[in-house]
C-alpha cells in the first residue's frame, strides 16, 4: 500500500542527491526497518512522504500511497492525508511539541481537524490514547517541558496514533533515551502495530534493534538502497561491504 519508485531527491543548496533512485514497497501491516547512518537519506524519505520537503528541493520518481502519488499532490489534498492516513513519530521527540501548548491540546487539535471530534468525546479518547502508551491521564494537562524524555516519546506516539492512521513512520524513536525506556518504547510499538494492523516503518541507525523487531529490513547508504530482505538473510549474506562490517561488529 506504500510504494517508493525510483525516488531521487536533491536539496536546494547541496551538490549531491540526498536520495538517489530508491525503490521499495511496504505491505499492509508490515513492520519494516529502514536502517542507515545519519546522512544516508532515511529521514529525507520520511519528509518526502509527508510532502514536507523544503522549498527548492527537486524530486524525481514517485511515492505512491494507496495508489496516489504524494509528490504530485496539492497542499490541500496532502493536508487531508497527513496524520489521518500517514503519521510520524519524530526523531527524539525533542522539539516536536509546541512549547506553549499542553499535550492534551496537541491531541485535541488533530482530533478536531481530522475526525471532527470535540468536547467530552475527544477528552475520553485522549485518556484512552495516553493509557495505551502507558501514560497517566494527567499528562494531558502538562506542558512539553514538564515531561521526561521517555514520557515525551510515549506522548508523541499517542499523538501519532490519535487519528488511527494506516501508515506510521517512527523516526529514531529511541535516540536520547536510556536503555530501559528504549526497550519499553520498542515493545510498545511492536504491540500497537500487531493490535491495530498498523503498517510501521521504523527508521533507525541501530541495526540490532531493527533486526530484532522488524520482519523486513531496508539498508541505506549515501542515498542508495543497498540491502533489502529479512533480518536473517541480511545478516547471513550482507551484499554491501559496509553492511558486512556492521554485521561483523555486532556479532
Amino acid at each position, binding site marked *: 500500500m506504500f510504494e517508493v519508485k525510483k525516488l531521487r531527491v536533491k536539496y536546494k543548496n547541496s551538490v549531491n542527491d540526498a536520495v538517489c533512485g530508491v525503490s521499495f514497497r511496504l505491505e499492509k501491516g508490515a513492520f519494516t526497518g529502514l536502517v542507515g547512518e545519519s546522512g544516508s537519506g532515511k529521514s529525507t524519505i520520511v519528509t518526502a512522504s*509527508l510532502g*514536507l520537503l523544503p522549498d527548492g528541493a527537486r524530486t524525481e520518481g514517485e511515492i505512491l500511497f494507496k495508489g496516489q502519488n504524494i509528490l504530485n499532490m496539492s497542499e490541500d489534498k*496532502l*493536508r*487531508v*492525508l*497527513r*496524520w*489521518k492516513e500517514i503519521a*510520524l513519530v*519524530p526523531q527524539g521527540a*525533542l*522539539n*516536536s*511539541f*509546541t*512549547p*506553549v*501548548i499542553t499535550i492534551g491540546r496537541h491531541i485535541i*487539535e*488533530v482530533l478536531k*481537524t*481530522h475526525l471532527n471530534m470535540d468536547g467530552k468525546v475527544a477528552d475520553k479518547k485522549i485518556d484512552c490514547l495516553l493509557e495505551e502508551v502507558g501514560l497517566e491521564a494527567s499528562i494531558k494537562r502538562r*506542558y512539553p*517541558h*514538564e515531561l521526561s524524555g521517555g514520557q515525551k516519546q510515549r506522548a508523541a506516539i499517542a*499523538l501519532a496514533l490519535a487519528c488511527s492512521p494506516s501508515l506510521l513512520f517512527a523516526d529514531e524513536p529511541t535516540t536520547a533515551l536510556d536503555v530501559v525506556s528504549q526497550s519499553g518504547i520498542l515493545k510498545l510499538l511492536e504491540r500497537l502495530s500487531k493490535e491495530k494492523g498498523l503498517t510501521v516503518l521504523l527508521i533507525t541507525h541501530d541495526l540490532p534493534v531493527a533486526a530484532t523487531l522488524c520482519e523486513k529490513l531496508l539498508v541505506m547508504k549515501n542515498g542508495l538502497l543497498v540491502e533489502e530482505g529479512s533480518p536473517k538473510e541480511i545478516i547471513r549474506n550482507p551484499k554491501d561491504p559496509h553492511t558486512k562490517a556492521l554485521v561483523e561488529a555486532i556479532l
Partner: protein
Amino acid sequence: MSSKWFLRRLFSSIAVLAAVLVLNFLLFRVMPGDAVSTIIDPSFSPEAKELLRELYGLDKPLKEQFFIYIKQMLTFKFGLSFLSRRPVWEELLSRLPSTLILMSLSMFFSSVLGIWLGIKAALNRGKKLEKLVLRLGAITASFPGFFVQLVLLMLLARTFPLFPLRGSLSVPPPTEATAIVIDYIWHMALPVISLTLMGFGGWALYVRNLMVRVLGEDYVLMARARGLSEKRVVYGHSFRTILPPILTILLMSVPGLVSGAVITESVFSLYGIGTFLLEAVSGHDYPSAGAAFYLLALITIISNLFADIIYGLADPRVRIEGKNQ
C-alpha cells in the same frame, strides 16, 4: 499559577515604588533654599502658612515628615497647586483620561500594525513586502519622534489644514455629546497617528525576526506534518510561541510610552498629565510637579507589573520553573 512567582513580581514592583517615593521626597525637600516653600505657596498669608504647616507636619522632625508624606502619597492627597490654587489631585484626575487614552491607543495601534506587518514579512521572505518592512523598520526606529510630529503638524495642520493645530478639544467645545466625541477624535487623530507611525516599525522588525526563527523550528514543521491548516500553524503554534517575548517588549515599551506621551502632549498642546508636569516644572509649582511625576511613575510601575503577569500567563515555562527568562 505559582503564587511564589507572583509574590516575587509584586515585591519587585513595591521596591521600585518605594524607591520612587523616597526619590520624590528627597528631591523636593532637599532642595536649595527654603524647603517649606516647595510645599506651601510662598505667596500665602502668614496665617495660612501656619495652618498649612501644621497640616503638612512641616514643623516635625524629618522622619515624621516622611511618614506623613508617605501617607499622603498613598491616599493621593497632594495639596494645592501653586499656580491654580486648586487641589492637585483634581487637576491630575481631569487630565488623566487624556494621557491614558493617548498612551493606550498608540500602544495598541503601533503594536497591532507592527505585529501584523512583521508576521506578513516573515511569511513572505525574500519578496518585496519583506524588504519594504525591513527598511521601514530601520528608518522609523532611528528617527527622533518629536521632529516627525512637528513636521506632521506643520504639514497636516497648516500647509493642508486637515487637522487642528492645538488642543484636545476645540475652543469653545461643541455642546452635543456626539459632536464632542467627534471633535475629540479629530484632535487626537494626529497625535495617535504620529505615535503609531513612530512605533510600528520597531515592532514589525522585531516580530519579523522572531517569526522567521520560530518558523524554522522543528515543532512548526511537525504541526504542518499533522495536517493542520496553514493558519493554525502560523497563528496557533508559531505566533503563540513568540507571544511571551512580544509581551516582554510591550512591558519594556511602557516607560518609553510615558516619555513619548509627554512630548506628544507638548507638540500638540493636549490637555494631559504631560503638559501639566511641564507647566508645574516650568512654573516651580512643586506640589503639582511632585504629584504629576509620582503619578506617571505609578502608571509605569503598574503597567510593568501588569505586563509581567500577562507574560507569566502566556509562557508556562516561566511560572513553573520560577526562573526569569
